[in-house]
């Protein structure tokens, strides 16, 4: 027996180690329990080193950044160069400080605006494994962080605490396939559960095909999961289409777009209202300035004419040719003939157009085109159809003969509407 064991010693050891790990795995999976002491040791051993490395990195990065900046400003004058270098060093330092202060101020502002009790933390490491979307933050159970607490930034939700250790905590990111949170859409108030996809985007499940979700619509936390308070931004819809059983909605988490370095842990969450949806302002077409074309030619000047304007102009010209004054002729006079053809030369040089009296040849549609005949104009004496004064409108002062042409001035060719 001993000989047999010696012969297969390596293989036996392998089987024993594998079996032990399988038992460990089965215990965790079956009882849904973790083996905290092993994780505790590892995290406690690794995260302090990560924190130290992060501090050293910040210092070294600042030093080298300043060093390379200093190299760039070498000039001819040594004193000026040293002065410039000193100022640049100081400038870089202050910029770094300012950027850090800006981020801290944004976090503090968000924290003060929110009624929830929050704790600021810094991301110090990522989890291992290809599909694991987890990070470590530098606040742990010593600071009051507990498993299941939500982690956010002013932009939106980041994830939730998966495990809390004394000096650090492990945060499951919103993009992890194991992540889930209740959400509600801003515009249509559609409820669902956001889940990570493992590659930077999320999906909102349990939304029926009949419910309406628009592209670009924002999703907010609904507060149903008791992890995130209601009203925190989650992400914007990037794709939506009907699925076999439920709608397939893909969301881009906005909080992870800029790889946050500082986060807030929600110690006590308080719901707030989801901001009202505002339709984006529609684009209004602004046409070119009509006056801008005036210099190009007189024909293009003048107000924009509609079909009704053309009809009115033509009617006025016909009336002028027949000596008719609209609104002036007395009742019982000869009715105006609208079927005459206008003289093309009439109206030029300020003279009234001559009318061609005859059978109507123009179709109703031709009226709008402003057609003219090639026939020589036969002068129609204005006296042949003397204007008859129409019944005067009450309250209108009576017009004299001298006033009448002024009331209807001849149309100048320059002001003629352009043909369309």
């Amino acid at each position, binding site marked *: 027996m001993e000989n047999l064991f010696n012969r297969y010693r390596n293989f036996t050891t392998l089987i024993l*180690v594998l079996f032990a790990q399988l038992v460990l795995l089965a215990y965790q999976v079956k009882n849904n329990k973790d083996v905290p002491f092993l994780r505790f040791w*590892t995290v406690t051993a690794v995260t302090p080193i990560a924190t130290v490395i992060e501090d050293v990195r910040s210092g070294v990065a600042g030093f080298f950044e300043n060093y390379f900046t200093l190299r760039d400003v070498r000039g001819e004058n040594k004193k000026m160069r040293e002065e410039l270098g000193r100022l640049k060093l100081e400038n870089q330092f202050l910029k770094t400080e300012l950027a850090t202060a800006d981020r801290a101020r944004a976090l503090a502002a968000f924290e003060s605006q929110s009624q929830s009790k929050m704790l600021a933390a810094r991301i110090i490491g990522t989890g291992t494994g290809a599909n694991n979307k987890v990070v470590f933050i530098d606040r742990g159970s010593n600071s009051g962080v507990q498993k299941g607490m939500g982690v956010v930034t002013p932009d939106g939700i980041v994830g939730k605490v998966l495990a809390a250790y004394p000096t650090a905590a492990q945060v499951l990111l919103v993009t992890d396939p194991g992540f889930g949170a209740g959400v509600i859409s801003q515009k249509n108030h559609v409820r669902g559960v956001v889940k990570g996809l493992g590659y930077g985007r999320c999906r909102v499940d349990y939304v029926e095909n009949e419910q309406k979700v628009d592209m670009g619509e924002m999703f907010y936390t609904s507060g149903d999961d008791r992890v995130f308070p209601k009203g925190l931004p989650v992400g914007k819809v990037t794709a939506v289409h009907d699925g076999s059983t439920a709608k397939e909605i893909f969301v881009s988490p906005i909080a992870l777009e800029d790889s946050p370095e500082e986060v807030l842990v929600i110690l006590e969450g308080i719901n707030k209202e989801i901001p009202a949806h505002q339709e984006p302002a529609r684009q209004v077409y602004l046409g070119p300035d009509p006056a801008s074309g005036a210099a190009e030619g007189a024909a293009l000047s003048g107000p924009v004419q509609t079909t009704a304007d053309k009809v009115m102009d033509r009617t006025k010209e016909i009336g002028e040719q027949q000596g008719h004054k609209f609104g002036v002729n007395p009742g019982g006079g000869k009715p105006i003939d609208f079927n005459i053809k206008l003289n093309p030369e009439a109206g030029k040089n300020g003279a009234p157009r001559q009318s061609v009296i005859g059978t109507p040849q123009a179709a109703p549609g031709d009226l709008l085109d402003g057609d003219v005949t090639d026939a020589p104009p036969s002068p129609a004496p204005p006296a042949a159809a003397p204007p008859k004064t129409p019944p005067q409108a009450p309250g209108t002062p009576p017009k004299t003969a001298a006033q009448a042409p002024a009331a209807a001035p001849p149309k100048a060719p320059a002001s003629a509407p352009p043909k369309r």
Partner: protein
Amino acid sequence: MSYSSERELALDRESQSSRFKTWVFFIVPILAILFQVYVPLFFNFLGFLELPLLVTIYFALMRRSQIRGLFIGAVVGLAQDSLSKNPLGMFGICKTLVGYFAASLGLRIDVEQPFVRLLLTFLLFCFHQFLYWVMARALLAQTYPFDWREMAILAALNSVVGVFLFHFLDRLREER
């Protein structure tokens, strides 16, 4: 090959095994895990590197001892599991087997040649990824797709990095 001749060959190879100072076995795996935890935060493109696996392969190959190889794999794997969200044992089992097989190969072939190291790292990386995927499906009911092409590319990249890493780690060996 008879048992005795196989045993003799194994003993001969074991006598050629590389020796390292004790601290190397602690510091190098910890640095590899730290690298995987910390560096992708700032250089996202380096997330493809599986340094803990490369370190496991190196020590198993160079020590030429199956028991040492499987224990190195188990410890590194469990440490990696501790920093992931998965139950403990997933990476542990994979790396245990990788360590065992790497040590078995180290007993039979000359692993000092860069090309042999490249090829072995490529194969063992593929084996590790596939085994992890099978275990995740079978034991944890996680159904994420398995992309052969992506795995092959990652294996190739890790193999190239592995050759250079192994060359660097060779300098930590003790002189005989």
